[in-house]
């Protein structure tokens, strides 16, 4: 029974972190269990969530499973969506916005390459805040979307159109030069506190 609880917890953790619905076959692989065990396990997770009055539920979508918030929680979540924490654009989101502004239309892949990190959640947050939108789909495998900034972006930045974005300098001085310049003005290093 104990190990059963463990797999139930593991299943919940997987359906919590996943960014897209997880097919049963993949769950079987990760949990190292057959579908005859995993399928009842999913049903059991849903039951447990209901029993304890959780705000979450398991749903099947796009051929896989994922945790979602219950619709009864929506009024609260709408209020939360306007809260400072939810509205705060993270540093990552701002970086992504800066790149989209200057490189649009840009795909998620291009963006991630430029930033050197995965940019999925940044794009979602910008899209949710109405600052960027899908401009088109590329005729490539998986039909990746390309993004552009919106009218709201222009409005919020006080711009009439994109041509008013300040030009970017061609290059920044290499770090070594910056350091040499700075060290001339710098105080000697301070002692350990």
């Amino acid at each position, binding site marked *: 029974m104990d190990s059963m609880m463990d797999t139930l917890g593991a299943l919940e*953790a997987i359906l*919590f*972190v996943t*960014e897209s619905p997880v097919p049963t076959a993949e769950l079987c692989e990760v949990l190292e269990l057959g579908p005859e065990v995993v399928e009842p396990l999913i049903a059991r997770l849903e039951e447990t969530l209901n029993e304890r009055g959780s705000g979450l539920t398991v749903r099947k979508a796009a051929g896989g499973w994922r945790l*979602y*918030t219950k619709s009864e929680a*929506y009024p609260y*979540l*709408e209020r*939360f*969506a*306007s809260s400072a924490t*939810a*509205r*705060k*654009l993270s540093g990552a989101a*701002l*970086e992504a*916005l*800066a*790149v989209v*502004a*200057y490189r649009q239309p840009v795909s998620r892949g291009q963006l991630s*390459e*430029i*930033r*050197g990190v995965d940019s*999925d*959640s940044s794009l*979602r*947050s910008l899209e*949710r*805040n*109405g*600052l960027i939108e899908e401009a088109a789909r590329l005729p490539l495998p998986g039909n990746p979307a390309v993004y552009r900034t919106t009218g*709201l972006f222009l409005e*919020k*930045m*006080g*711009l009439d159109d994109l041509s008013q*974005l*300040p*030009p*970017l*300098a061609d*290059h*920044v001085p290499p*770090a070594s030069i910056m350091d040499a310049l700075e060290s001339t003005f710098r105080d*000697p*290093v301070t*002692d*350990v506190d």
Partner: protein
Amino acid sequence: MAYHVKTAVFEGPLDLLLQLITRHQVEVTSLSLTDLVSEYLTHLDDMRQMDLEVTSEFLLIAATLIQLKVRRLLPDDGEVDLDEELALMEERDRLLSRLLTCVTFKDVAAVLAARLERTNRFVPRSTGLDQAITPKPVELTMPIDLAGLAALAQRVMARQVQEPDLDHLDLELPSVQSAIDELRGRIADAVDTSFEELVEHCTRKVEVAAYFLALLELARWGMVELAQEDWLSEIEVRFRGDAQVVSEWTR
């Protein structure tokens, strides 16, 4: 492309000095300044032979060490210039204080690393709110102005230009050994070649980096000589048939 590489043994002049000191601390009760100076200088020579950049930082520390050593050899008969003496002591204290600061941060970094490791096992969800739930956009206040946005774009894109970032290499370089094996075969035939030619077939930055580290290793063993006019020019590679493999400590 500029390749910033820390050698396998130490990272920078302070770290080198620290390692020399702490290594000896295990073997003998007190390390003689003379030994320390000669070992430090030996390392700088090695770096020059490998054509690694010996920065002014290395030279400054070496100069202080040498001055301290010279001072010790002088007869202590009152003929010293007090100003010079004071300047030297200041220099010495500054070096000591830098070493202590360096050790302290190395130590606390290990604690932070452990914390990070522990906390990393708790994974948050990053998918955010359902797309169905959207806040009213009018309420949004931008935390950045136009100039800030431009500066940010500039910085992010410059970061890309300044790649490759070799920071994670110690985890991602299973192929250095095979690059070494492969290079040993190829270089023997090539005699004179360039790094660029040797990595022509590589498609990923991480492969190029593996080859670069492999080449450094071969240089350390004395099997190849490396030369580069300046940091933008080709890295020339010369095979030395007569080389023997030697330990880095005995060279």
